[in-house]
């Protein structure tokens, strides 16, 4: 029995264990100093944590990994572009960008939630495709409507042709303003205290949220929609709320992410963010139907350590820096695929267990 449990745990945590191994092997090869590594990981922790935390609520509501968190990221970018143009700098600028992004994210989340209610059981693929669709609309807005319809004044932001936004928008005025708001460094490792405080607050909110009536309803809906409906819970509404919350958090998270980066890649920042966040969460040991705050932080540490050391190690071994870049993209897609396959096989396994039990009972009865 005990032995069975060990193999069970190994399978359950196979992805994190695999990543620990990759990191342990690559770290010495890469030749990076421990203090550099620590610095990088702490920075990335502050940069990504909020975004990844935004994925937790839809998982709780049984809607799987929210690939359409990209929608929130786009809303955040629109907020930042406008604030940049209005030349509102520093923390006030960030706050204003968040205020602008929230209604946009909420609307997009509402739309997404409604669509996903029509596609119950196929939430993940649907949300993935929605993110492509909304990306098209985002490009229309940013490329054509910004200028003629939405006034953009500054030539550093506008394309030379007179409308549309440049490929990169510099956020120098806000760069790491939040991270450096409360300066602190321990043993040469710079710690973005203010960012961590915000992330910590969000964690508290999520913990508290699980204890609310709405949180309880979401867990019920996530496990069995039919039963929840029979008990009088408004299933569709609950699911929509979870999407709206997730999208709004993703928008705020994107603004925190970009203030750390210091510039917006207008047409590509958001497109990979969903993929990397989901991969990080899965690396932390989460599954499609179960994820915790612990998974988020473990995931960030493991995934981003791999991100930092693997390219270096690749360069050291092969002498080609491209191999590492290739490796990180390859691995994040692979992780997601493995997680999805494992989810399905586990589901099937549980089903066939019922049959095995029947066969066993029968054997026992025959003896």
């Amino acid at each position, binding site marked *: 029995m005990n032995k069975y449990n060990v193999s069970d745990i190994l399978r359950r945590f196979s992805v994190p264990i695999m990543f620990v191994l990759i990191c342990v092997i690559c770290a010495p090869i890469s030749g990076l100093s421990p203090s550099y590594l620590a610095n990088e990981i702490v920075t990335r922790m502050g940069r990504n944590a909020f975004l990844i935390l935004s994925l937790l609520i839809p998982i709780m509501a049984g809607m799987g990994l929210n690939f359409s968190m990209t929608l929130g990221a786009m809303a955040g970018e629109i907020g930042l572009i406008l604030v940049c143009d209005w030349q509102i700098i520093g923390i006030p600028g960030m706050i204003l960008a968040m205020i602008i992004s929230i209604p946009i994210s909420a609307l997009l989340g509402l739309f997404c939630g409604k669509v996903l209610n029509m596609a119950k059981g196929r939430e993940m693929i649907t949300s993935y495709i929605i993110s492509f669709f909304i990306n098209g609309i985002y490009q229309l807005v940013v490329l054509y409507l910004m200028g003629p319809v939405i006034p953009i004044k500054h030539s550093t932001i506008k394309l030379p042709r007179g409308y549309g936004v440049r490929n990169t928008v510099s956020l120098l005025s806000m760069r790491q303003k939040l991270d450096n708001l409360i300066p602190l460094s321990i043993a040469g490792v710079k710690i973005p205290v203010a960012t961590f405080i915000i992330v910590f607050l969000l964690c508290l909110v999520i913990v508290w949220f699980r*204890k609310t009536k709405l949180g309880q309803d979401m867990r019920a809906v996530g496990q069995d929609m039919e039963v*929840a409906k029979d008990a009088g819970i408004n299933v569709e509404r609950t699911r929509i709320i979870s999407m709206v919350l997730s999208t709004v958090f993703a928008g705020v998270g994107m603004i925190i992410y970009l203030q750390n980066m210091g510039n917006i890649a207008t047409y590509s920042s958001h497109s990979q963010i969903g993929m990397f966040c989901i991969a990080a969460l899965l690396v932390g040991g989460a599954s499609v139907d179960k994820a915790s705050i612990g998974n988020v932080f473990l995931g960030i540490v493991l995934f981003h350590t791999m991100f930092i050391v693997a390219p270096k190690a690749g360069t050291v071994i092969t002498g080609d820096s491209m191999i590492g870049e290739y490796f990180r993209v390859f691995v994040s897609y692979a992780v997601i695929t493995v997680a999805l396959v494992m989810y399905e096989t586990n589901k099937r396994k549980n*089903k066939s267990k019922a049959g095995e039990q029947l066969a066993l*009972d029968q054997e026992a*009865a025959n003896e």
Partner: protein
Amino acid sequence: MGSVPLLEMRNIKKDFFGNQVLSDINLTLNEGEVIGLVGENGAGKSTLMKILFGADVIRETGGYGGDILLNGEKVSFASPFDAIAAGIGMVHQEFSLIPGFSATENILLNRESKRKSVLSEIISDRMDTLNRKEMDTRAQDAIKKMGVNIDQDMRINNMPVGHKQFTEIARELSKKQLKLLILDEPTAVLTEKEAEALLESIRGMSKRGIAVIFITHRLGEILSVCDKVVTMRDGYIVNESPAKDTNVAEITHWMVGRSVDGADVNYVTEDTGKDKRTILSIRKLWVDMPGETVRNVNLDVREGEILGIGGLAGQGKLGIPNGVMGLYQAGGQVTFDGEEIPLNDPRKCLDSNFAFVSEDRRGVGLLLDESLEWNVSFPAMQVQNKYLKSFFGGLIKWRDDAAIKEVTKKYIDELKIKCTSSTQKAKELSGGNQQKVCLAKAFALEPKLLFVSEPTRGIDVGAKALVLDALKKFNKEKGVTIVMVSSELEELRQTCDRIAVVSGGKVAGILPAGECLERFGELMLQNC
């Protein structure tokens, strides 16, 4: 007492699309009274309870006739929620529980104790936090009321099945307004000890003034716990008598004994085929079909016979054909004509010349959006390469539309399928005609062994006779062995040579079709 009864049902009538399922039901129930409701499947028990509970399906199919009075006032429930508010609780046969929640959370699902928080004032009361302590005491109270102890912190998916059932009952008991509790076969999944505990708790409820309607197939339980036994058959209440004045044999007789009209019915009364060869032999079969679990079935089918499989709903009779044909996970040995047939592989079954007419006509049986021609010819085309023209030595195969049309026409005439043409879509036909198409489809395969599952479910009397006759004719003319599963005993008796009765997932016994009804009744109730 002398006061108004708690519940009164007057002249309840219900038909599904002209198919009368309930006629003139009158039922009264006093506070604290326990009624046992018995009857064969299709007798109308569940429909009656659905009407009482305001189920959506009743309204969607045109409502019901007659009045329901609760405490002397006429009520009409627009949804189960209204019924719950009025003090009616129902424990369904299928569990309605959240697997990952504890018993407490399930008992108080969507009725949790809450604490106000700042945000709940601003946003909505869904932002209230849960008051776990109070929830625990409330759940504990409900469990105490039930009188059966269950661990309230245990998660549902770790519970034995009996405890799940008790959790459901505790949920109903935790509702303060509860006055009437409907238990739909609650003991079917319980062990003997658990069932005894449940009966004890029913007695306790009755003392506390809660009326109970208890539906079960275990007649002994009814006699030990109920004040009154109500027997239903074919949509009528055929008998209503105090439990202390009756016995199991009498109730069984009321349940199955039907008015035999017309002596022209020929039953096969003797086991005539003892000398025939066994063509299909099933050994140690188990099938994991939800709600129709099959356990350890051994069954021999003789060449050329029509073997009936009967039994009550949920006892596993549907699991047998579905398991053998590979539609649900199964294990055991199936030998056909000396060859072992691998399980869980529908294609192998079809290749061995089996055919299956599923009870799930619309889901498994038909290509609803395609024409009759395609429906009739599709399996034969797929499995046996019939109705195809080969070119280049079979490298390219084209559909032979003329042959398809011809065979469809043939079956339309033979089975009297009512349709505008052979190209009409299957979904446009009525239930009875759809069933005939399903048969035609199986006949076109020209199988050696045909499984027919609930061939007359939901079709009218005229079509019923035609379907059964077609099966008999097919059996006689082509010598095809038929295994027919049906919940209607009478129809099995008229069609089959022998009838195997399934009870509790096992074959309880095999009788010649003409055996007296009481014997069948006994077997049906043997293991359930």
